[in-house]
């Protein structure tokens, strides 16, 4: 069958539409594992972060169910909101003070066995999580995978909560309660040190 020029034109355009490709710049693996490790280590190399996040776990364990679920869930979610502010360049004043204050308040809550309503406890933890997230969000090293960096620091945060919860299980014993209150005092004292460092 002889094809008309219009037929040929349509065929040519259809063929070109099929082969027309732009660059699919996907999935380059360079720097991805490094980005994950950087994110994972970021909270671990800041003693102020470590103290506050372990204190969240300690407090959750001390308060028992449902706080033991709600606090470790609230913290990373609100921290991610803070992270978004950080990476978008939205300024939050006094981030370092906020991080130090989080260790003081959460440590004191554990030391004095403060038992507020669940909503209040979640709000306290959430407010401080904003500062921690902002600090992480502003510090993505150049050339790293943003997603893996984010996943790294979210996982590290969660693991620190788990450490706190693990330590907090001693709360069931009478000596454990005293030990836990002592741990809260140490966290609060650490927070005072970091606040002093931030001010000085």
């Amino acid at each position, binding site marked *: 069958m002889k094809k008309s*020029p*219009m037929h040929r034109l349509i065929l040519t355009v259809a063929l070109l539409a099929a082969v*027309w490709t732009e660059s699919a710049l996907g999935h380059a693996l360079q720097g991805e594992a490094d980005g994950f490790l950087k994110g994972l280590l970021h909270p671990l190399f800041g003693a102020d972060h470590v103290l506050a996040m372990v204190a969240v776990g300690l407090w959750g364990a001390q308060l028992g169910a449902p706080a033991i679920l709600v606090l470790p869930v609230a913290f990373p979610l609100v921290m991610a909101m803070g992270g978004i502010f950080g990476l978008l360049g939205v300024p939050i004043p006094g981030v370092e003070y906020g991080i130090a204050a989080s260790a003081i308040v959460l440590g004191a809550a554990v030391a004095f066995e403060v038992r507020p309503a669940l909503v209040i406890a979640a709000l306290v933890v959430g407010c401080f999580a904003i500062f921690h997230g902002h600090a992480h969000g502003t510090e993505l090293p150049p050339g790293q995978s943003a997603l893996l960096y984010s996943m790294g620091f979210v996982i590290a945060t969660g693991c620190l909560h788990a450490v706190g919860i693990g330590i907090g299980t001693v709360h069931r014993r009478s000596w454990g309660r005293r030990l836990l209150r002592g741990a809260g005092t140490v966290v609060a004292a650490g927070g005072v040190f970091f606040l002093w460092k931030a001010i000085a």
Partner: protein
Amino acid sequence: MKRAGPLQMRAFTVTLLAVALGCGPAEAHLDATGMGPVYDGLMHFLTSPEDLVPALALALLAGLRGAPYGRRAMFTLPAAWLLGSLFGFSAATASGGALGASFWFLLLGGLVVADAKLSLRSMTALGALLGLAHGYLNGTGMGLSVASVAAALGLAAAVFVLVVLVAALVVRLRAQWARIAVRVGGSWIAASGLLMLGWSIRGV
């Protein structure tokens, strides 16, 4: 209508071909493992958190709901993934992949945290939509060939294995603390999704 003459047609065709040949390289998805396209597809899934984590979240959700949900997810998700990949072969480019992935992170992570009491039908729909969306993105730019189909099969096989293992593990969890740990894991997924959304807005 006046027909185009043979000379005009040739000129038009040559011009279009020249433009088409000038297109940028399709820096395709798959990292070569050296073991063939099936393993390339399998490794692609295992090394792409944008794909792996939503599938993991669906498996966690199915596991929390029980064995019938796990069984449904383990067939629906890989089948839809494969179908989505086949649809994606004909597409040259896709946009909004990061935004779409952050949506799935947030939705599925949120459902795991809430231990949402979904119906079996909703779980099926969720698995099918997730599989179609991510499969389509995976298939995009690969082009229709035997190797692409083999890679899509490898991808679907990896999805199947992940869902089977994770859902079976979670179904067996009876201790309260273990179920809480799974739900906390959901919050990590949702938090990562939030951050991914932020990165997409920033354009990283």
